[in-house]
Each structure stands twice: as C-alpha cells, then as structure tokens.
C-alpha cells in the first residue's frame, strides 16, 4: 500500500505530553479525577446497580426476593420473546448500518465531486437529525398509513405498483424494516458529515498521482481514500452500531413492538418489562445483556476493521 499510515492517537498523546514538560503528575491528576469521578458515578455505578438488581425479583412494592441467576436462566431458556427481540434487534442493526454508513459514504463521496451547492445539500441531508423523534414518528406513521392511504402506498399506486400497497406497520413481514428505515434515514446525514470531513482531508496529490498511474475510481477509493479515512470510519461504525443497538424511540412510538413481537427490540422489551410489567429484576437482567451486547459489538467492529491495517 502506498498510502502513509493514518494519524494515530497514541502518537498524538505522546506529543501532547511533551508539550507540557513542566506539568507534574499531580496537576494532571487534579484535572483528570473530577471527570473520572462523575463518570464512575453516572455510568459505572448504574451498571453495577443493575447487575445487582438483576439477581432479584422485585415489583417495586413488595420486598425484593433474591433469585440468584434465575432471571438469566429465564432470559436464555424460558423466554421466547427475548430471543425474538434479540433477532429483531440484529435486523434493526443491519438495516440501520446499511442505510447510515452506506448512505453516508455514498452521499459524502458524491459531495466531494460536487462543485456548487455543497452547503445546501449538506444542510438538507442533516435536517432529519435535528427534527424531534416524535415528529418523525408521526411523519412516518402517515407515510406508511394504509387506510387512509399514506404517501408510500399512494406513490406505489401512481407508478403502477398498486398491488404492492399494504399496511406496512401491520404486516409482520414488513414492519421491522418499516421501523428501521426512519432511524437509518434520520442519522445518515450526520454520519455523512463526519465521513465527508474525513474525505476532504485526503491529500489531493495522492489522488492525482494515482490517476496518473491509471488507477480507476474503485482503486482510488479502496487503496487511497479508504485507508486514509479508516480511523474515522471505525469511529463512525462504532457510533452507528451502538446507537442502533440502543434504538428505542421510533419503534416504540410507531408500533410499540407490534404487531405481535414483530418489531419488538431488546430495548422496548426491557422498557415494557420494567415499566409495564413492573418486573425490575428481570428488566435489569435484560439491560445487563444490552451492555454486554454493546461491548461485544464495539470489540468486534474494532477487531475486524483494525486488523486490516496491520
């Protein structure tokens, strides 16, 4: 590979440390401890509390009952809704990642070739990310509506595909995709901005040199541009994946997990378990699973994308 190694964080921090030669370790600690304390209190403590609560059966009113690992045993062996939700969460993740990362890369790539109106296009794509979730949910409820006829079914009618018109949010085969698309669409613009900024930083001379060597656009992208944006790509992928794994609001507002459990995600299921079923212990067990799931996902992404560099 002819590309120079991408800028690396560890190196940067070494450089930064050298920029502060007179600073003692204590002064560094003084600045680091408060945020760490806040972090421990606001992030680590709740995780530990959930871990603790997941070993109990508790409805909020009567006394907590220690049940050991029974909540986990129930989750893995006796609860089919949990597994359905897990499967749905994976489907939701896949659709969101394709739409967000694929869409982001595509639009960002096109943007770099655009000579005029870049700012306008950027703003337009970013717009959905700043609209309130509730508004988006209502918007899509209307778009998917069957009776009265919503936008999607109307458009199908117009282009002569009226036979495909259906109640998208009621059909168990389409509902998962239907609730995933708004989430994917919504944040594609945000990731596009990040990827676009990274693409802009790719030195033009490398690209020109490759063009002189008769590299085609795919080779330019894959061998020159992509290695350059890989660190940003890893971050973006991790962000998109963890957001999608925590996705809650749009499925909850659009279908509340229905029909049946066809669009139930782990998050909506955990919420119902805690606040509708008042089974706080079991809900904690599910949330512990979500934490582990997020950590595993981040590890996998990091491992897979990072390995290619080495």
């Amino acid at each position, binding site marked *: 590979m002819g590309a120079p190694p991408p800028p690396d964080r560890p190196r940067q921090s070494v450089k930064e440390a050298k920029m502060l030669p007179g600073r003692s370790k204590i002064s560094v600690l003084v600045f680091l401890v408060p945020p760490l304390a806040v972090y421990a209190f606001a992030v*680590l403590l*709740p995780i530990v509390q959930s871990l603790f609560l997941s070993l109990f059966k508790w*409805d909020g009113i009567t006394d907590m009952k220690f049940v050991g690992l029974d909540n986990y045993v129930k989750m893995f062996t006796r609860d089919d809704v949990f597994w359905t939700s897990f499967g749905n969460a994976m489907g939701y993740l896949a659709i969101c990642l394709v739409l967000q990362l694929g869409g982001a890369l595509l639009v960002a790539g096109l943007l770099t070739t655009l000579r005029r109106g870049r700012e306008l296009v950027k703003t337009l794509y970013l717009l959905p990310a700043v609209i309130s979730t509730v508004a988006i949910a209502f918007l899509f409820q209307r778009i998917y509506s069957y009776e009265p006829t919503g936008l999607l079914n109307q458009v199908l009618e117009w282009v002569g595909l009226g036979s495909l018109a259906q109640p998208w949010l009621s059909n*168990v085969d389409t509902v998962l995709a239907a609730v995933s698309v708004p989430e994917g669409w919504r944040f594609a613009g945000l990731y596009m901005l990040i990827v676009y900024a990274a693409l802009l930083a790719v030195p033009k001379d490398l690209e020109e040199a490759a063009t002189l060597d008769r590299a085609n656009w795919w080779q330019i992208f894959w061998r020159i541009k992509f290695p350059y944006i890989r660190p940003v790509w890893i971050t973006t992928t991790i962000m998109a994946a963890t957001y999608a794994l925590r996705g809650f609001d749009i499925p909850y507002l659009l279908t509340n997990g229905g*029909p*049946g459990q066809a669009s139930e995600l782990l998050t909506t299921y955990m919420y119902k378990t*805690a606040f509708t079923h008042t089974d*706080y212990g079991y*809900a904690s067990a599910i949330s512990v699973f979500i934490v582990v799931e997020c950590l595993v996902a981040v590890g996998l992404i990091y491992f897979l994308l990072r390995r290619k560099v080495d």
Partner: protein
Amino acid sequence: MKHHRLNVAAVAAAASLTLTLAACSASGASPDSSSSDDGTITPREISWLLSRPADGGVITAMEQIADEYAADHPGFSLNLITTPDRPSYIQKYETLAAAHQLPELFDTDATPFAKKLAGAGQMVDAEELLTDLGLYDDYLPAALNYQRFDDGSLYMIPFEFQLEFFWYNTALFEQAGIDVPATLDDFPAMCEALRAQGITPIALDGQDLWPLERYMAYYPFRMAGPEYVQALKKGEAKFSDPAGVAAVNWLYDLGQAGCFQPGFSSTGYADAQALFTTGQAAVYNIGTWELSNLATENLDEGVRDDVDYFTLPTIDGAVTADNEYVTPSGIGMAVNAETYDPLVKDFLAYALARYPEVYTESGALSPTTTASAAIPDNATPLYQRAVDQAGDVGDAIAMPWDTQLDPTSNTRLQQELTLLVQGDETPEGFIATMDAVIAENGPEAFAE
C-alpha cells in the same frame, strides 16, 4: 483510540441503563406523613394524579368543586396532574408507587398491582371511607362492583358510569341487507355481507390494544360468566377450556371474515372513530364517554340520522343475561393512606357529596343514584335512550381483561391477539402460547 472505544461503549451502556436506574434509585424515600389524629384541618395543596381527558367532565367538575372548597378554606388547592394516555399513565403511577412518591389521590384500576399496593397498606379502604362519609348507599352497586378486587374489597372510588355499546350505521346495514346480529356467532356473516358491499365492517383502534382485548372478553363472559377470567388469570382455568377455545376461534373467524379494517394494528383511537363517523365503517364498539360525539349534533350530518346502537349480543346457552355486558365505572380514584389526614378527609366529604350534581350537568352518567344526566340541547334522540339504558343494567359485569390479567400475560395476550386476528397465528398456536405464558406468570402474580 483505546480510550475512545471505552468511552463510546460506556456511554452506550449508560444510556441503556438510565431507565432502569431511574426506577431503582428513587426507592426508599418516604412521603411527608402529616397524619394527625386531633382532627385539625390545615388547608394546603393536595394533588391528584389521574388519567382522564384534560377537558373532560370529571376534571371540569372537580376543578369547580375544588374552587368552591378553597373559598371556604383559604390556602387549599387541588393540583390535578393528568396523563390521559393510559399506558403512559400506568407507567408513571407504578414508578411513583415503587418510589413511595404517590400524591394524596391517584387513579388506578383494580389491577394486581393495585391489589399489592392495598395489601401493603398504601391505600385507604374506600368502603369504610364512603360508609364513614354516609355516601356508600348513594352509589350504584354496579359502579362499586367494577372497582372491587376479586375478594370483594373496595379501595377505589368511581367517578363515572359507562355502558359500552356496538354503535352501528343503519344505512350501511340496509345496504348489505343484514339485521343487527342476534348472537355473537352472527358476527362473521355480518362482516362478510358488509365486506361484499365494500364496507369496512368494524372500525377498530388496534394501536391502543385494549379495544381488541374487549372482543376477547365477550365470548367467555356469555359462555362461562365473569368467573372464567378470574380463574384464568391465576392459571386455574385455561385457554384450552371450552370457553377459551370458543373465544379464540370466534376471534380467528372475525379476522378471517375481514371484520376489521386492514392495518388495524396501526390505527389510532381518532382514526378508528373517524372511520365510523364518516360512514366508511358500519360498526364501532365504544362506551358512552363518546356520547357527545356520537349522539349529538357534533356528529357528521351525513351519518347523524343513521347511527344507532345495540348491546353485547348473546350466544346460545348463555349464562349471563342480555342486560349484562361491559359497564365500567371508569378508572377509580384511590386515597393514599400515607398522606391521608383530616384535610383530605374533609375535602373528600365535601367533594364526593357535591360531585354527582356538578358532574351530571355535563350530560354524563353519574356513578350514584343521586343525580341524573342532563341531556345537552344539541343531543339526538339516541342520547336519551343511552342514558335510560343505564337504569336497566344487570349485576354481572364483563370485566375488561386488561384490568384483570397480570401485566406480563396481558401484554403478551394483546400482542398475540393482533396476530390471531391478522391470521398470522393459528388458534391452536395462540392457545398453546397463552397457556404457557399465564402458567409462567399468573400464579405467581396472584399468590396470596
């Protein structure tokens, strides 16, 4: 990079846990107990956490009564905190209950959760309270019975009395050449005849889930009486029993006959009602709380003269009478035992005695026998008929199942019902799933 990875992961974890934390970190707080036995009334602000329409009859009446009371008791005020959307309300109230943060008054149905609250001594015995205030005998027995737990104890006070009807469009029935169904078994044929005319047979608000769950309650109520669901929820009866099988098959048949509009599961309350009031759907199952929209000039002129209603049809060999159906007295009001003091008692004494008169001025049915509904000036003849119907209601009540089952089984039932009616689940599969779910959750939830 390593730091960054951890951060993102931790932020992800934190956000997914916030909800759970909110529930558990609030526990252990104790309310300011101001119970004094010397009987001194010290006016202050009291709050009522409720789930009723913001501009509805109950809130309007109670605001007026609170103002009257405050005129005599400077410093008093009633803070009404309403969350009309029922699922959101229940979440709010149950979370506050777990945190011992419920206000002086709060709404609840006679659910298993409320039973636990009563058992934990957090609610004032309503039967004692009403007797003490000399109001107990004013109430319709049916209105009180709706609020009772299975053991007959009473912890909630009713503020409404409603009858649930099948509203139907006579013109559309005529067009399809059909009569009002005499039995529940006539429903599928009714739907097919209407479908053949391109009419949506029944408008259903599937998004809120409870309207479809009503249909689940009908067949067993006729076939086995109100006791069936009481046994079912504890795991003592099963869906595989005759009443359960008949109900499941009936609902499956309704779905197969195309009774409900396509995509009903994502149709909301207002959209479902609009299907009926615009003459697109022939039947609509809703209670008398909608009288002002269905039996007054508020109703669209195009259908105003065609709207009529029938009550829950019977079946062959029914064990409940024709005049026994879903007659709820609405969500009840409970009195928080931990904040109950002379002021709360004195206010309730004034408010509950005054309430029927003020409330019925809005044209609503009173849960007491002491006042009758004032028919609004713009009412259609149907209004008076519906009000009179309230005088002829039998003793047994078809209880809505969402107030009966434990919450986990209830959620699952609502989900599976949609699938059953959509044809995505077979009656056999439905019965097997639901019996397993209730066996897992029911007996434990109702263990004494």
